[in-house]
């Protein structure tokens, strides 16, 4: 394949990888702090796209306002789910909270089907993003730059929050040990809620950009990406934010390159993530950035 095509594919992969990374961060943060796989996270991402859609289509708001509202609403939704579905089960056996997560996910999906209808809708795109830039023989949409740049910017903000603010320190403490964090005067509930909020906000931004890149939205759109992004988080080392980002890029770029180099296997595109998952779980279950935790007996 020509260099031009290769670059195109790489750009594609990096965009996809960025989106995966943004969503994967939400999974990894929640897992780090609650040891919970937030099955509903992919559906939160889906809801974000619908919030934006209705803001533009029903309320005729300009795109920047719609996106802003969508992020706010999605953040609120994420925190609400935490409050209703996970908080009551904080001390219950692990299987209960996992089932609740699955239930919440199904609930959101089916509510979306009822409220928004099962048929795909067209996500509103502004010309701002679709304008094409030409570099030599390669034509790339503006979007393909905006996505990674936005992702990196958000990441830097997140890293700053985690490492240089009290809230971030609280989040790190709670993910190590709930009891001790409480003894140190940290408000666990608030910290956990904020974690969900941040994760959901990032997923919302991811959702907006996803909608711009793949303009078809439907209630079940969060299922496969959600699963893949969780896998990305596991590959990178669950609980580790840089790991989630690395995992997201590995998955995004890998998926695109697989289809590019082996077009016969296009149908197995989604299976790529699962196969990677199985391999990682078998050979390095703690992930690329993960550390080994021994259980005290």
């Amino acid at each position, binding site marked *: 394949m020509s260099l031009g095509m290769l670059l195109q594919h790489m750009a594609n992969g990096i965009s996809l990888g960025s989106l995966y990374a943004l969503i994967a961060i939400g999974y990894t943060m929640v*897992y780090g702090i609650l*040891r*919970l*796989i937030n099955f509903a996270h992919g559906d939160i991402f889906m809801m974000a796209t619908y919030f934006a859609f209705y803001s533009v289509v029903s309320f005729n708001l300009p795109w920047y306002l719609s996106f802003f509202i969508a992020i706010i609403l999605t953040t609120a939704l994420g925190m609400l789910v935490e409050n209703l*579905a996970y908080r*009551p*089960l904080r001390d*219950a*056996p*692990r*299987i*209960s909270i*996992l*089932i*609740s997560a*699955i*239930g*919440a996910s*199904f*609930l959101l*999906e*089916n*509510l979306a*089907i*009822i409220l928004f209808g*099962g048929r795909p809708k067209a996500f509103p795109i502004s010309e701002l993003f679709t304008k094409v830039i030409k570099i030599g023989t390669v034509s790339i949409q503006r979007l393909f730059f905006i996505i990674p740049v936005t992702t990196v910017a958000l990441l830097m903000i997140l890293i700053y929050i985690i490492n240089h603010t009290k809230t971030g320190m609280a989040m790190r403490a709670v993910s190590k040990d709930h009891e001790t964090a409480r003894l140190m005067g940290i408000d666990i509930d608030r910290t956990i809620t904020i974690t969900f909020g941040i994760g959901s906000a990032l997923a919302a931004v991811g959702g907006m950009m996803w909608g711009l890149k793949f303009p078809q939205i439907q209630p079940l759109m969060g*299922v496969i990406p959600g*699963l893949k992004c*969780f*896998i990305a988080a*596991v590959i990178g080392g669950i609980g580790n934010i840089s790991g989630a980002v690395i995992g997201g890029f590995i998955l995004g770029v890998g998926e695109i390159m697989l289809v590019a180099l082996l077009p016969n296997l296009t*149908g*197995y595109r*989604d*299976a790529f993530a*699962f*196969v990677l*998952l*199985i391999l990682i*779980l*078998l050979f390095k*279950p703690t992930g690329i950035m993960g550390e080994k935790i021994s*259980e005290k*007996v």
Partner: protein
Amino acid sequence: MKRKDIYLTVVSLLVFTVFLIYAHFRFDAYKLRILNLCAIYTVLGLSMNLINGFTGLFSLGHAGFMAIGAYTTALLTLPVATKAQNFFLKPIIEPLSNIVLPFFPSLLIGGLLTAFIGFLIGAPALRLKGDYLAIATLGFAEIIRIVIINAQRVTNGALGLKGIPATTNLWWSFGVAIFTIIFMLLLINSSYGRAFKAIREDEIAAESMGISLFRHKVLSFTIGSFFAGIGGGLLGNLLGTIDPALFKFTLTFNILLIIVLGGIGSITGTVISAFIVTIAGEVLRFLDQSINLGFVVIPGITGMRMVVFSLMLMLVVLFYSHGLMGTNEFNWDRMFDKLSAKKLLAKRRD
């Protein structure tokens, strides 16, 4: 079991068999289908409960196992002509095109193949703990589904299979269900069953008591997947058509709901719950359709049924996490106890 218990159980079974005979002759096709589904979900529920409930392994891959069983049984029972009709896009591979077997061996082969694949998946996957195992099994189920969609010449891909002979009837479904119940009861009450429970309670302690975690986890997983395959086979030959979309995660979720509602770790709980959930599922179908009250028509909302199901699951898990039976089994004495206590209370109020 005490003499009295055996007597009571046999009598109730006889009564139930009479009911089944009545149903076989008098029920319409719709009701028969529901009854068959109850039995099939009993088998599926028990197969999942063995792995998740009794051995404490969080496996979410059940839909994948069911798919293997369903497709195997279907492909083996489909008459040659119908097979050719189905595979119009790409012909089915030899020798499958010409093999046609009766229902029982097809079902059995389906179960055994599923058990074999369960073993292959379990051997590596069961080294993982808790959430990791859940995601790995979920991943395997999805891989199975994606392979089915792509293996056009074996499974007919996304088109699915139609015209599967409707060989599942009340005798088959309930026969298998009763066999499964008895099998599970015998297994759980044996030393191996106790070993499974020990693993569920505390893996490290179980291992320190000499129980090989790997051997027993794989054993439980393989047996569970065998019955899942059988259940899948029964399902396929009841519905008459199967396609990859049938075996999405929703199916695993439904069975999970059944075992959680019935009480993880209770055989009788699973049986009762399978009936309740299947029947309720059908009854609740009205939510998806319009309700004509005469003076007003409440429009049906597609998907409402699943919303109610999800809510139910969450409510059970939030407020009633032990499910109907907890970890207890049905006990004639306890039932009589409860009934007479009610009578006592009623008398007191007078």
